[in-house]
């Protein structure tokens, strides 16, 4: 077990440090985007509970370190540019 030093009052100054914990390992299904179809509406970006989608000039990009594979992005994409495929590890 790793030892954790408890600060006075358990004050944690390490803002955003949850990023150290990679929730991508929870996934059983993985989203894949077809950028030919993506119309850059960014609905998936707004709806993702995990902030695992980045906006790019071409559309979107996944951050698979954090994507939990919930499938919301694929279901909500208005042009069906996203499909969920089985995660192979």
């Amino acid at each position, binding site marked *: 077990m790793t030892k*954790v*030093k*408890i600060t006075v009052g*358990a004050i*944690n100054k*390490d*803002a*955003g*440090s*949850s*990023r*150290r*914990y*990679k*929730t991508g390992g*929870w*996934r059983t299904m993985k989203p894949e985007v077809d950028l030919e179809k993506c119309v850059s509406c960014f*609905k998936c970006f*707004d*709806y*993702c*509970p*995990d*902030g*695992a989608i980045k*906006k790019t000039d071409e559309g979107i990009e996944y*951050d698979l*370190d*954090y994507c*939990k*594979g*919930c*499938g*919301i992005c*694929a*279901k*909500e994409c208005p042009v069906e540019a996203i499909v*969920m495929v089985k995660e192979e590890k």
Partner: protein
Amino acid sequence: MTGEDKELFASGHRACAGCGEGTAVRQILKAAGPNTIATVCTGCLEVVSTGYPETAWEIPLIHAAFENSASVASGVEVALKQLGKKDDVKVVAFGGDGGTFDIGFQALSGMLERGHDITYVCLDNEAYMNTGIQRCSSTPYGASTTTSPAGKYSIGEQRPKKPIGAICASHDIPYTATATIAYMSDLKKKAKKAIETKGPSFLHVFVPCPTGWRHASNDTIEISRLAVETGIFVLWEAEDGDICNLNVTVKPKKRKPVEEYLKTQRRFGHLSEEDVKKIQADVDEKCEKYGF
């Protein structure tokens, strides 16, 4: 990257896959901006985002006890006023439905009545989820929970949902609104408005919980949308506590039957045709009051 794209609720939080709270909090913090101090009482939001020594928060956050997110936020607001900093810093208090409708209600009522410049956000997933799906005064009629289990002698929850928005608005606060994550622009607009309001504001956000409602993780947004399309959850806003003249912000042209909403979740899986009819009649009556 525009300012709106900066995440103030970081990835790596431990909410279940498809949790509506994750979507809601990401957006509400973006609306509040980086110069914000938040409080959160215990519940899924606190537990999934503050696993010491890590935190998903990019803004200062104080973890309050279960009943006092609103009291702690009141103290923060008064301190900021004393320091002459209140104009630059927003204060947002978060609570689950258990922490708001039930156990934190006294603290919330006091916060509203004293007129603090705070936005209180209730993340309503209609039960005490973090401790294993116990019923709350927010749980709707007919839902099966671990303390209102459906069975031979019971339909599940037997009481209707407490009208928390109307109760808060009745404190004559400047701004009260209901919102849900499927209606993203409505949610963003209301969050901004609530946060920019001087004085107390209350934002009631309806957030599906795949674990507690027993629905597929990819159905979270669809269920949030169906709640509005069927009239189960009404999106409105009211200024200065004027609930007689509240503004319904999303009016479905033709309401879908409540069955379409109920059948997406296993917490309603036991309901008979008769039960569904009763729920439909209750929703029809409610929507008539809202004028649609």
